[in-house]
């Protein structure tokens, strides 16, 4: 089966600094890959590179069947990235932010309400993003990501800022995403929690990947 993500000898420079230095990685459909490693190891850059937000300087990068060295835009409608910030607009309400993202992605507007319900944001649907707490903004970013119906979900420290209820909801969402056949790449420092959700862990050190780099056939989710 063709991997959803296939990276070979990837080098990515941020200015003159090699944020990724010869990285290899495969991820198959339905896998939940945990990216671990210290600060500055390259986890965020790797997720942004897979999303097409930063350029590949050398190496082979194929994501969702597209060669990112030639085209890093056309696969974006099939993925979602939840980064450190919500990528939302302060003066739009929770519902309006989700509606905008869903309509832009060409998905059905009906899924926006479902996503808000799933993340426990329905009571805040008419509250402006600028009035939400940090944790509520994280939930909103996740709701938008799910509402877009992505094949590939990229999550950068998704548990950060969430309360206990939010973390539990996130864990359920990750489990459901994997069961739906979505590929999840998850960068996190909360290893005790996320290892239980992941099918595989890849450790990044100074822009290189170590550990189980290749997708294993028919991975079995390891959950608590």
């Amino acid at each position, binding site marked *: 089966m063709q991997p959803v993500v296939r990276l070979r000898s990837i080098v990515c420079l941020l200015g003159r600094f090699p944020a990724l230095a010869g990285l290899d990685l495969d991820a198959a459909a339905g896998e939940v890959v945990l990216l671990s490693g210290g600060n500055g190891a390259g986890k965020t850059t790797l997720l942004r590179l897979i*999303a097409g937000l930063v350029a590949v300087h050398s190496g082979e990068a194929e994501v969702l069947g597209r060669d990112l060295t030639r085209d890093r835009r056309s696969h974006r409608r099939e993925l979602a990235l939840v980064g450190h910030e*919500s*990528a*939302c*607009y302060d*003066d*739009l309400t929770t519902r309006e932010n989700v509606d*905008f993202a869903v309509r832009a992605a060409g998905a059905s507007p009906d899924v926006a309400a479902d996503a808000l319900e799933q993340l426990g944001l329905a009571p805040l649907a008419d509250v402006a993003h600028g009035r939400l707490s940090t944790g509520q903004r994280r939930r909103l970013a996740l709701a938008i990501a799910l509402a877009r119906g992505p094949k590939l979900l990229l999550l950068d420290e998704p548990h950060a800022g969430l309360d206990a209820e939010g973390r539990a909801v996130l864990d359920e969402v990750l489990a459901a995403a994997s069961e739906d056949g979505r590929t999840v790449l998850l960068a996190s420092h909360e290893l005790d929690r996320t290892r239980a959700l992941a099918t595989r862990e890849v450790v990044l050190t100074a822009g290189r990947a170590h550990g189980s780099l290749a997708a294993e056939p028919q991975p079995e989710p390891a959950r608590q």
Partner: protein
Amino acid sequence: MNLAQEVGLVAGKDLRIERRARVTLQQILPFGAIVLLLFAFALDPDRGVLRRVAPGLFWVAVLLAVLLAVSRAFTIETEHAARDGLRLSGLDPAAIFLGKAAAIAVQLVVLEALLAAGVVLLFDVSLSSIGPLVLATLAATVGLAATGTLYGVLAVGLRMRETLVPVLLLPVVSPVLLGATRAWEAAIDGAPSDAWPWVGVLSVFAVLAVGAGMLAFGPLLEEA
């Protein structure tokens, strides 16, 4: 979604944000009005000077307002990394460009109508040839909005964007200032035949600005 629907989605989003924030009405319009008032105090109103320079003053006020409107249009994309959301949205970059330019143009039209009323009242000007005056204003507005959007995205990722945008933008839109001022002078003097060539110049500038923006906005959005 087709291009027109995507343009409507982006423009609708920006105008909804503006309607809530009211930056145009509460900050940019008073700024334009103050510019007109200051010139009214500075120049001698008894010798018909104000009437002669009214078109130029009007368009200088509009031009300064454009700088604020463009800055505002891209400030909302830098907060909470909304620009990443826009890049990942799946929207055609040309549609993003046209949508943002359309939203700026709508705000400018409202602003121009109010400032024109101010010019008529303050400077004792009668607008006799409405046809060329309106067409010149619309063509100039489209040109200014398109050029402003293009230069706005160019500077969006830079710390010095507030000072860089005026330095880059003002020389480029000087033909608009010239053409629109001449067209207004002709319209005020009751010589519409003198206004039409300037309407043509402004229309050509507008078409070129829109075309260049549709081509260049995508790469600039990626690299900014």
